[in-house]
């Protein structure tokens, strides 16, 4: 599945569409936006514990194009590329294949690490909200990535508020243990998409000029959701082998990704 670039060409349309989605969502309270769908979710095998780690991709309802929903952006190449790096860099017994799982599928609870992208296009249904909420409260860890600017943030925030209304979203301090779990990460790098990365800039999309690392924590201080806003780790993994994609971006994406996985498996 292709990356959803060139985004700049669709920026105006997207912005308008998103404004509509957000507005519609706000007005209709907890009801999903019309037209949102998960799309096809490939059968990636039965749930199993044959390996210690599966990189599970969240298949959620959203506004995507074509056969797949927005959840499938960079899927599965980004996932597989990341797993190759993860296995090389750590001793995690990771399953090397991709794994997509719906939020309303009970089997999601077998994958305590979950990766979601393009959450600016997310429009969760009630069963998905219930499934994701229980998943997170039971001990699951959600990493969201690749959404840009204030409007996409607003959409994501609207959706995640429906999942976890009681917990605030907070900015991650630079001394947070996540940033030292495996690699010492001292700065938040804005990771651009493949097209902008190849072209040498700019690194931002829409009005997402500054990258942010944010988190949602429960009352005991356990991180339930990690949010990488205004950055695209997925593209950096997917195109890590591309000679024209700057290595510092994929390097940072891998470092953060490895830290996220080990953090999610130990905290």
């Amino acid at each position, binding site marked *: 599945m292709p990356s959803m670039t060139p985004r700049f060409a669709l920026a105006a349309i997207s912005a308008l569409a998103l404004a509509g989605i957000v507005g519609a969502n706000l007005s209709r309270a907890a009801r999903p936006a019309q037209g949102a769908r998960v799309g096809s979710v490939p059968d990636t095998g039965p749930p199993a*514990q*044959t390996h*210690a*780690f599966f990189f599970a991709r969240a298949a959620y309802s959203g506004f995507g194009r074509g056969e797949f929903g927005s959840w499938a952006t960079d899927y599965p190449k980004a996932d597989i590329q990341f797993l190759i790096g993860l296995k090389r*860099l*750590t*001793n*995690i*017994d990771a399953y090397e294949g991709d794994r997509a799982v719906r939020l309303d599928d*009970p*089997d*999601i*609870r*077998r994958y*305590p690490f979950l990766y979601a992208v393009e959450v600016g296009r997310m429009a969760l249904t009630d069963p998905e909200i219930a499934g994701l909420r*229980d998943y997170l*409260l*039971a*001990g*699951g860890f959600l990493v969201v990535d690749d959404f840009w600017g204030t409007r996409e943030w607003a959409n994501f925030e609207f959706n995640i508020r429906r999942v976890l209304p009681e917990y605030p979203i907070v900015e991650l301090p630079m001394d947070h243990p996540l940033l030292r*779990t*495996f690699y010492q990460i001292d700065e938040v790098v804005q990771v651009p998409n493949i097209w902008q990365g190849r072209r040498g800039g700019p690194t931002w999309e829409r009005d997402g000029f500054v990258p942010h690392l944010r988190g949602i924590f429960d009352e*005991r201080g*356990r991180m339930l959701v990690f949010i990488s806003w205004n950055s695209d780790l997925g593209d950096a993994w997917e195109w890590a082998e591309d000679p024209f994609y700057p290595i510092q971006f994929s390097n940072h994406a891998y470092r953060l990704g490895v830290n996220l*996985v*080990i953090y*999610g*498996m*130990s*905290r």
Partner: protein
Amino acid sequence: MSSVAETVFRLLFKYRPVVFERGELAFGAPWPAWVLVVAGIVALALAAVPYALTRGDLRRMDRVVLASLRLGAFALLAFCLSRPMLVVATVVPQQNFLGVLLDDSRSMQIADDGRTRGAVLAELFGSEAAVVRALGEKFKLRFFRFSEMVERVNGPEELEFTGRRTDLGNALDGARRALSGVPLAGLVVVTDGAENAGGALDETVLRLQADGVPLHLVGLGKERFAKELEVTRVEAPRDVLAGSSVAVDVTLTHTGMSGERVTVSVEDAGRIVGTSEVELPREGETATARVHFTVEEPGARTFRVVVPKRPDELIGENNSREMLMVVNDRRERILYFEGEPRFEVKFLRRALDGDEQVHVVTLLRTAENKYLRLDVEDSTEVAGGFPKTRQELFAYRGLILGSIEASFFTHDQLRMIADFVSQRGGGLLVLGGRQAYAEGGYGETPLADVLPVVLDGRADSSRFYADVQVELTPFGRSHPITQLGTTPAASEERWRTLPALSTVNPITRVKPGASTLLRGREDVGDPFVVLAYQRYGRGRAVAFPVQDSWLWQMHADIPLEDQSHERFWQQLLRWLVSEVRDHVTVVTSTDRAERGQAVTVTAQVVDSGYVERNGAEVVATIVDPTGAARDVPMEWIVERDGEYVVSFTPTRDGRHEIHVTARERGVTAGTATAYLDVADLNSEFYGAHMRRGALERLAEATGGRFYTPPTLGTLPEDVSFTESGATVREERSLWDMPIVFLLLVGLIGAEWALRRKRGLA
């Protein structure tokens, strides 16, 4: 012998059996022996010759029988003419003393048949009683009352029946001492039971045997109650961590209540914290009820085990027992070494999140030579990876090994882990994983001996994987680790519905002596071992060869509010470190004692490497309930290394604290505290039936006899036949016994009848 049989015996033999028992047979005829030989030959001739010579159709057998009958009659006459007699030693009237020991303990207040045992005693041994008068004619009587002490009294009128215990050994020794300078014909003990003070009765009996002083026991009370239930024993851990699930085994005995169901409760300060129902087995068999509850509040706490008294039960005091349990609120430190990132790490840590008592330090190998340290106390803790010195490893009380290959460790480290269990007494828990057990290459290492399971390994080198539907074993049903519900039934139900786990370590066999708590269900797959343990040296080794217990938290079938996963891990790790020793450990011979009961304090002292120390200066500071403290030095007992003892006798009721400090070369090696509750334990009401067997054995061992109120009439005469004290030899003739006359008439009559039948008369 029953009284009827004894009466018949006396009619036939002129004297009571006791005279024959005590006496020696002698003959008083003045004739020399040759007269007897001649008389015998003549008698034989007179008996045999006439029948041999008689003509007629007498059969040979008739001749023999007739001759024998006549010969028998002659022999009996000869016996009588020989003046047979019994020589018995009897006391010289009023020359001997007789000690009468009267039970003054509280159990004498029990009214077996509407009258208390004390009232029966007062009637039987009052100054006007027939037995006392008869005894008084022959002996100088000295009365004593006894319970936990012994004291001279003038008679049963002075008894109060308030003694807390029956210390028979002490009573007998005391009476012997009081009567040491006088001729003592024996001791009569009037009691309802045997020793319950735990004294050395055997030695007392040996002394009585040596002195030839017979002990006559008079048993009061019923040998069996119609309906009675008693809490006989309570077994519980003495030392637990706050928040632990505790299993208390309660042993019940009963009479007349077979098949009935009773509820056993455990109370903490009047509040019921756990109950268990049990069906009472056949009479004579004990019932064991296991009561589970969780201890929360720290400190030395007294729990009470109660079975409600039924209206038709005679004694209510024996329906409960109290126990002392020290609930610790210290933090137990456990090292968890995991060889690869796994969700077990996250969820195990979360299960113990906020646990004040169990602190798990996690060392996670994330890549080759790269470690993540979690929950360390300071920057130096396990900074160099897995501990390399005993001192560093032995600082923990428990060790969890995850999926880490054996080749990671040096041989010394593996040896050190084995010593951690066997010598330090630590708890080792090994989780399942692709690098654990045989799959991790542990088959030929020192840990293979430590583990409770057999490391078979597989010939097939491919990666093994199997789902495991966990079920409780019969042993696991009642174990504190596996209690996931508030009641055993709720717990079993929870285990039935927990989702399946998986294993990559196909382990199906445990070692002899190991206990299996959880296993895989056979109908779902192979019966893999899921949770098993064994003692290894001073410590415990636990095998948990599954790899994803986190599913008990995360699985979609588990409600969010379910605490099974947290509870399982908290209970498992608490149990793992529950009996791990410190540098100094101290125990008392009992946790509850009566005032005046000697208590032994035993301390174990080891050095920083957990090697026993014999040369330490060990002092016990005993603080009584008033706060008064006294130091008593403890002595090393030579039989066992590192063990020191001292005994003391508490004199006040209430909680005593025993602080033990061990010092070596002026440096404190360690301290420990034990607690002792001194109280009225109602000891007299346990086993309160009259113990006939024990009393009979005691009487028999010393040459005395056992009596009950109906048979007491013969006591005065029996007591007078004694070798002890000032005695004379008395001759009692036997020729005039009615049995002799009856036999003679019988023999002659039989001969005459047979002769008549054969036509000879």
